[in-house]
């Protein structure tokens, strides 16, 4: 019985320690994001890495999601003769949900993992210590540029992804399901409101922050050589993915539950 309580106690303490450490890390990192000096060269490099090089992955996932969405809702809605709603379903699902979540998860796999591996390697090979001895704050030099780039590039990436996804839905609807092109486009914009797009972009910014934060945090605290870096990479991707889905719910509730 006592053993059991001790185990529970240990788990709770470990959880609180991790939460505290993560909060401290986040606060420090955000502090460095808003206080000069800024490393513009590094921010730019990270922006290209996150924004530009993720385009193919995000483009592919969103175009196929848009296509399948059109196909599914057409066949599903045919059961109660509501095929006309396909355009609206595609555009709302894409902008509100699928665009940000898919892009977030894809970037978590691509960027979160790469950041954890890079920073983790720098940690275990003492490169982070070397930064400090060369009068450079590693939080400012390594973490802040990545967070800034994640926060700003994901919304852009998602906007592009939204458009590609909606285009995918259009392709299937017009060329496969026989919708009239002009009507489909009109329908697409008929019920679309600003808040649908804006909520998606807010999600994207939050997801971008979470992915880069997890990548940096797990990399920064990795230890124990190659194995530790491997674990950090896995943890970064898993924790970022879970956080994305959790925050996705709460942001949706914030915007749309009334």
């Amino acid at each position, binding site marked *: 019985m006592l053993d059991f309580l001790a185990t529970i106690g240990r788990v709770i303490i470990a959880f609180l320690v991790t939460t505290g450490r993560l909060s401290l890390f986040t606060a420090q990192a955000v502090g460095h994001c808003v206080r000069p000096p800024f490393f513009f060269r590094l921010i730019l490099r990270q922006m290209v890495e996150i924004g530009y090089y993720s385009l193919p992955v995000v483009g592919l996932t969103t175009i196929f999601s848009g296509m399948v969405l059109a196909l599914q809702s057409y066949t599903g809605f045919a059961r109660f003769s509501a095929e006309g709603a396909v355009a609206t379903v595609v555009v709302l699902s894409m902008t509100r949900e699928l665009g940000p979540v898919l892009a977030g998860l894809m970037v978590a796999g691509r960027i979160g993992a790469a950041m954890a591996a890079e920073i983790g390697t*720098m940690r275990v*090979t003492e*490169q982070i*210590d*070397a930064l*400090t*001895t*060369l009068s*450079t704050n590693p939080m400012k030099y390594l973490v802040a540029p990545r967070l800034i780039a994640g926060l700003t590039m994901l919304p852009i990436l998602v906007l592009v992804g939204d458009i590609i996804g909606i285009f995918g839905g259009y392709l299937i609807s017009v060329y496969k399901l026989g919708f009239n092109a002009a009507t489909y486009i009109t329908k697409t914009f008929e019920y679309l409101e600003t808040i649908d797009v804006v909520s998606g972009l807010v999600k994207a910014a939050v997801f971008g922050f979470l992915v880069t934060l997890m990548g940096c945090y797990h990399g920064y605290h990795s230890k124990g050589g190659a194995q530790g870096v491997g674990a950090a990479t896995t943890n970064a991707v898993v924790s970022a993915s879970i956080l994305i889905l959790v925050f996705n719910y709460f942001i949706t509730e914030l915007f749309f539950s009334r």
Partner: protein
Amino acid sequence: MTEAPKIELRDVHKAFGPKVVLDGLSLTVGKGESVVVIGGSGTGKSVMLKCVLGLLVPEKGSIKVDGQEVLGMDPAEREEVLRKFGMLFQGSALFDSLPVWENVAFGLIQGRRMERTKARDKAIEKLAQVGLGPEVGELSPAELSGGMQKRVALARAIAAEPEIIFFDEPTTGLDPIMADVINNLIIKCVRELGASALSITHDMASARKIADRIAMIYKGKIVWQGPTKTIDQSGNPYVDQFIHGRAEGPIKMEVKV
């Protein structure tokens, strides 16, 4: 009273959880002096250097740099003190995302806000000091051999002309000839800068060559120290065992099965 020693560690304690690594370590390095700390692997030599640099925080004790207590300093002051230091890391710790010249110039560009073109000239000059041509500057660290990486790391450590330089196992993993080249470079660079040096090694040939004074660390304490030439007559069983590399003696290797 003469002037304060460059570095003074007094009764420093550092443990990781239950594992005690430094257990009341005391050591001083005078101005312009080259002190070498010898000791087996895992005895806390690197931890000692990291405590002085503020990369690790000891639980107890005092560390003074130029007579100024550094433990408990606020980060801005600490950064000011760190500018006096150069450090050669055990594994070189070169930044592999940057070309060699930018590695060498890093402290000048980021730490001292020097212009890139000027810093680059300075880096080429420092590379020449460690016997590397300007063409090496364009390579990436991964393209260099271990010995060349050590030289680049040395150039980086001296680039900002520090008052105090730390060398963490500068010759470990190098062939004897390359090790001697590095030893000569260390002596030359330290002398040219008039810097104080604190090195750690378990390579006795290297220790004898670069040290004015040698100290031996064992179980988190300094168990012997004295001028380099007295080491063979130390009369200390730990030192004797270590310099002759004998398995039998007071030093027990923790070999767990």
